[in-house]
């Protein structure tokens, strides 16, 4: 379970980016964190991962986040970065796959097995020995997802997973996300993707929660979405 209690944060320039944020996410939920550019979505993820720290309290499975348990907390959370180039820093997909597991104490053999298992599950066995800098955008995104799943996180965080993908690769990523059993938190302004993958939506506006509820309700609320510089998902607008 993830809990934010009155969390506020500002960058050095003093402009508040996240303000008095409170919410709870239960195990197994799939939550879409939506909002216009600059609403604070990525910052919320960074707070959750302990990459930046603000005022208020963040609890993971009841543990208040602190310096001492940061490693344990990060182990539970798998973060798929918006830019896969930052995620895939090893020479090959395979080396990236075992990097996390081995750092967290798995033996090389176990990590090997884990890598194969994940690649098979995501239908990516062809990518195993490919060089990262030679992957296409879609392949790289899928490989980045595989890399995170290989660490066996309890919760998967994804920052704009479908940004800059073509429709075909976007569909592959969406189907992959749908199949994930883990707790999911996904930021995006691709509301059709959120519609497909999330049952709950938290709408952020200027670092505050503008709405929090079932995806079915919020994503149909044209007035609410437009007031927050978003549009009805195409899938709903067409109906």
């Amino acid at each position, binding site marked *: 379970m993830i809990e934010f209690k009155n969390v506020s944060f500002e960058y050095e320039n003093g402009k508040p980016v996240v303000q008095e944020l409170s919410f709870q996410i239960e195990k197994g939920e799939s939550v879409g964190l939506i909002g216009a550019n600059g609403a604070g979505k990525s910052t919320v993820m960074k707070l959750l*991962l302990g*990459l930046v720290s603000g005022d208020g309290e963040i609890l993971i499975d009841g543990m208040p986040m602190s310096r001492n348990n940061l*490693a344990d907390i*990060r*182990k539970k*959370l798998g*973060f798929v*970065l918006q*830019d896969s*180039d*930052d*995620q895939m*820093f090893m*020479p*090959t997909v395979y*080396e990236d796959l*075992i*990097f*996390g597991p*081995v*750092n*967290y*104490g798995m033996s*090389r053999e176990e990590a090997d097995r884990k890598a194969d298992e994940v690649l098979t599950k995501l239908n990516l066995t062809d990518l195993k020995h490919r*060089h990262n*800098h030679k992957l*296409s*955008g879609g392949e*790289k995104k899928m490989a980045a997802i595989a*890399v995170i799943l290989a*660490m066996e996180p309890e919760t998967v965080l994804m920052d704009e997973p479908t940004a*800059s993908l073509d429709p075909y690769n976007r569909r592959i990523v969406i189907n992959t996300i749908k199949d994930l059993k883990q707790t999911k938190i996904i930021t995006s302004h691709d509301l059709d993707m959120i519609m497909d993958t999330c049952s709950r939506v938290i709408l952020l506006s200027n670092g505050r929660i503008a709405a929090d509820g079932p995806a079915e309700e919020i994503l149909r609320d044209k007035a609410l979405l437009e007031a927050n510089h978003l549009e009805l998902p195409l899938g709903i607008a067409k109906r």
Partner: protein
Amino acid sequence: MKREPGNKIEHALHELTAMDELAAGSSFVHSLNPGAKLAAAVLYILAVLSFHKYDLSGIIPMVIWPVLLFTLAGIPVRTCFYKLRIVLPLVMAVGLFNPFFDHTPMFRLGGFIVTGGVISMITLMLKGVFCLMSSFLLAATTPIDSICAALRKIHVPEMLVTLLLLTYRYVGVLTSELAVMTDAYHLRAPGQKGIHISAWGSFLGQLLLRSMDRAQSLYESMLLRGYDGRFHYAIRTKFAERDAVYLAVSAAFFLLVRYGNAAELVGRLFVR
């Protein structure tokens, strides 16, 4: 963001950093202990740098060591020069002014008097080239993570090693940012060769800011996957007998070339 390395600068720099394809080989040299290879490279560089500035004939035999190892590693020496083609001129430029300052006559070659400046220029250039060759040899036969693990093992501070690792990865980041920016610049300044000097300041500033941001997220992404300054994932190889032999033979060769001037030895045999 995905870019093909279509930009010329990026292409050349990218090749330079994409060393891992070479480092994944399986020759005798590749399989040596990373620590032994690192130590040999450091000794080689020290030996090369210790030659006197006029000792051109003494330093030339030093070329044998990297060339021999490149051959054993199955990497053509020309690959090394090709990959280093944008760095080589910089290193060579270092000695370029010596001939203007040092006019000490050294010997006659045909009708020309060869000055000390010319000799020291060539010696300095060779020093640069040799050091580059041996560094390239190390990088091309040893994965960066193994080099870092070896450094940690001899207790080089974690900070420095992480810095080295990040720099290595950072060069890639820097070049892709550079490429995006030069492309963007040229789209708005068609037909212009290079970047106009008036734009250099803001260009460099932008480049620095952008690549710092990228390096930051790269480092964060390493942290999130359990990076803690130790290199758990680097493949460990024991320091075996052959590593000791390799190191000893290399060191003996350096000493021989450096102090036991081979040419002089042979000469003395005949004079006395």
